[in-house]
């Protein structure tokens, strides 16, 4: 096994696979993917539902099929893989420490690294869910692994808390497997996942969604016996007289995803407290030179296709860095969240980038606007540099906006760029 690689990619989900392929295609020599599981594909392996590939392939695929396309492409381009291997540490000088059963302790050096560890699910403790601590409380993704990979049912009578995508998809999946999903509860006054999942997974299967309602208490000593549901006001305070005990044996949580950046922190990568992912520029390079980040490790995407696209950008940047031992210096301008924008990625735009290609910005709205909106990128003087109309703005759905090379001149003069989502006048 080699000791030095041009590019090491950590994680083989859609972001990691795309990054490895792009690194190869852009001239990197030795490229290695390190994957902790026994198969390539990351979380896609357990996502056997469809809905993947519509943007990139114009085709509706299940997760494993989508992953297989990139797995074969990676193999075809000669990407090396280390499977069943856990990275324990990364240093700012790009030394990677990992272990596995067959090779034991492994120490590698990379000219560039792409972090593609994805994200993890928020747990009951992170939302401070009261009550007992019995068996039968699962995050939706863990339940998904049990059902789709292990072939085991984690329960028969479910309540699902949170209208995130995995929760709704699991509601359908469990119903197909003969379980009863009694309720999906959402504390917010709006859906937090995609509307299409609400229609295809809940409406089509007659599963009830209740908004502004949450779990007040988990009941049961050994196994979940029931949950107590309650309605809440805008400030999440329980509304008296709205309690209901729902008998069930399982509670599934779909209450948010958090980019997984413990390794990033060890490498000295700075994180944005809003996204919980690294600060990145338009090539997805972090503050640590030569360390890039791609996919859900940066911020949580709605669609895998966009993760793949981000992986391509990061992999290309990593290949360039590996070959030049630096990316050509270039002036950068900060991109900031403005009116009704929670965050925008990337955080910085390299001014020279627009000379050749498009730069895709992705953002989330703070509050829903259920009418036509205008998304704008403005400079420090309020001058509109790029804009786009959308039929609505919902916090659960990422808004994409592309800055095109025609804005090159305007961006050169900018000191700061602000992104806004406003009602169309």
């Amino acid at each position, binding site marked *: 096994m080699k000791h030095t690689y041009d590019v090491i990619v950590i994680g083989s989900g859609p972001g990691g696979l795309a990054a490895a392929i792009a690194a190869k295609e852009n001239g990197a020599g030795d490229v290695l993917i390190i994957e902790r599981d026994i198969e390539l594909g990351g979380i896609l392996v357990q996502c056997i539902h469809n809905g993947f590939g519509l943007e990139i392939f114009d085709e509706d695929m299940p997760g494993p099929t989508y992953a297989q396309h990139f797995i074969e492409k990676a193999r075809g381009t000669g990407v090396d893989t280390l499977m069943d291997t856990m990275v*324990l540490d990364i240093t700012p000088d790009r030394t990677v420490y990992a272990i596995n*059963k067959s090779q034991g302790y492994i120490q590698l050096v990379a000219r560039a690294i792409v972090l593609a560890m994805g994200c993890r699910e928020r747990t009951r403790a992170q939302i401070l869910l*009261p009550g007992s601590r019995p*068996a039968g409380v699962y995050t939706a993704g863990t339940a998904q692994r049990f059902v789709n990979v292990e072939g085991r049912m*984690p329960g*028969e009578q479910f309540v699902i808390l949170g209208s995130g995508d995995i929760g709704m998809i699991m509601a359908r999946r469990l119903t197909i497997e003969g379980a009863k999903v009694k309720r999906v509860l959402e504390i917010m006054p709006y859906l937090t996942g995609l509307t299409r999942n609400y229609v295809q997974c809940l409406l089509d299967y007659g599963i009830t969604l209740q908004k502004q309602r949450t779990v007040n208490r988990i009941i049961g000593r050994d196994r979940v016996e029931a949950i107590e549901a309650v309605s809440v006001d805008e400030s999440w305070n329980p509304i008296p007289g709205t309690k209901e005990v729902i008998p069930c044996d399982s509670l599934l949580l779909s209450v948010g995803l958090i980019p997984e950046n413990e390794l990033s922190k060890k490498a000295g990568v700075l994180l944005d407290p809003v996204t919980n992912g690294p600060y990145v520029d338009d090539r997805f390079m972090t503050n640590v030179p030569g360390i890039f980040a791609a996919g859900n490790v940066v911020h949580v995407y709605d669609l895998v296709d966009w993760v793949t696209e981000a992986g391509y950008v990061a992999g290309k940047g990593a290949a360039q860095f590996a070959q030049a031992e630096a990316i050509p210096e270039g002036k950068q301008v900060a991109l900031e969240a403005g009116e009704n924008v929670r965050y925008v990625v990337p955080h910085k735009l390299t001014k020279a980038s627009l000379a050749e290609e498009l730069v895709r910005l992705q953002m989330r709205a703070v509050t829903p606007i259920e009418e036509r909106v205008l998304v704008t990128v403005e400079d420090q003087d309020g001058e509109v540099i790029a804009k786009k109309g959308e039929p609505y703005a919902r916090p659960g759905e990422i808004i994409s906006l592309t800055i095109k090379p025609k804005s090159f001149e305007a961006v050169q003069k900018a000191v700061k760029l602000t992104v806004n989502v406003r009602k169309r006048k």
Partner: protein
Amino acid sequence: MTNPYDVIIIGAGIAGGMVARFLSKYELDILLIDKEVDVGMGTSSGNSAAIHAGYDALPGTNKALTNVIGVDMWPRLSQELGIQYERCGDYVVAVDKEDMLVLEELLERGAHNEVPNLEIISGEAMRRREPLLRPDAIGALWAPTGGIGDPFAATIAAAENAVMNGVDLKLDTAFKDFIMEGDRITGVRTSQGDFNCRWAVNAAGLYADEVMHKAGVRPEFNIRPRRGEYLILDKADFQLTNTTILFPTPSEKGKGILVASTLHGNVIVGPNANFVDSKENRDVSKEGIEEIWSGGKKLVPAINRKHIIAEFAGLRATGNAPTPNPEIDYNQDFIIEIPDKVHGLVNLGGIESPGFTAAPAIAIKVIELLESAGEVLTEKMDWNPVRPPRPVFRHLSREEQAALIAKDPAYGRIVCRCETVTEGEIRAEVHAPIPADTYDAIKRRTWLGTGRCQGGFDMPRVVSILAEELGIPEEEVTKKGKGSELLFRRTKDVEEDYLNMEDLL
């Protein structure tokens, strides 16, 4: 009915476990029973992990006596049992003049209890030692003999050392009644049958009152469960400057809501102290979380809700026993006695804080009581006080880790990513002297599943490993014993369908 045991210990918490471990030194046939499927699942399963210096307990009480003897036993005990313990010292923080008076009182109590090297330091000195402390603290009591232990590891290691030295351990074995001949106890009735004995030790924790009442002892004694709730913070996000325990000044409710380091590297915030109606009510409550959070914030304003990764509650076995010395006006003391009325009973009761610290001293006291009752205790020639620790991958250097994987490749696979726990550690616990055969038993021993993803990543993997090691279907793997199965059935009963199709063909 089996051959009679010399001693049956009822309850395998920290007290019962320590009694078993110290009694295993002697030529005695000992049985340790517990109603749960693992040791240490009652009071010992939820507390602050503090090894108290001994300045808090009222002088002359059993609490004070056993605390001060106990704290000095921990350095050697932790070495022998191969468990973590750090004598990092602790602080009681004062923010106003009334608090300063309380510090003076604690200093005086400490002097009575012979707690060494207590000192009141200035607010400025305190903040130098812990800059994250609230800026308006005006002073603190510094107790250098205070420390931090690991209640799970200690309870398991004590029981394991007892088992290594010949003690029989029966789990899932609930005490039902005593078998009596006149006023003499001759055996114990349990959910798993009757066992004869010459001595029974009541170490039943929350249920110690009910156990002693079965022998007709202390009908007025009553345990009221007092719940303490806790929050754990992500170690990657928040740390105290130094490993320590920060207490507020105590009130009648107890030692107050502390902010402390744990030996697993996290910060712990809690507990409150509220009576609950049931001895099994370990629910975490909304109000409780708010109560401990505001308590913690008062001491260390920098704690952030976003960093909370776990919530749990423990129950204190709060009793109503007066201190044996009638001159001391205290009614919440430990009971450590051989009652007059009944022969063959060693009675422990009301063992709440500082019970963890005091447990080894209580065990010594039990030995003294037996001897004073005429029991001739002969030391075993081959008693082994050392319980060798098993490898903990995350505590090893890179070289040691590499060597361990080379020896056993199972240590090369990480099963719990947040806490860096390997498959090798899990398999070792299944084959330990007290086999870990539930998810929670593995969790308490290896610390997997306690990190920021709370088992989301490891659980399917642990279930597979347990099923394989125990030779059972995955559907029979439990979280904490029967009734807490994690999985219900296979998806799609294909095998049956195939059978039917063959019939058709």
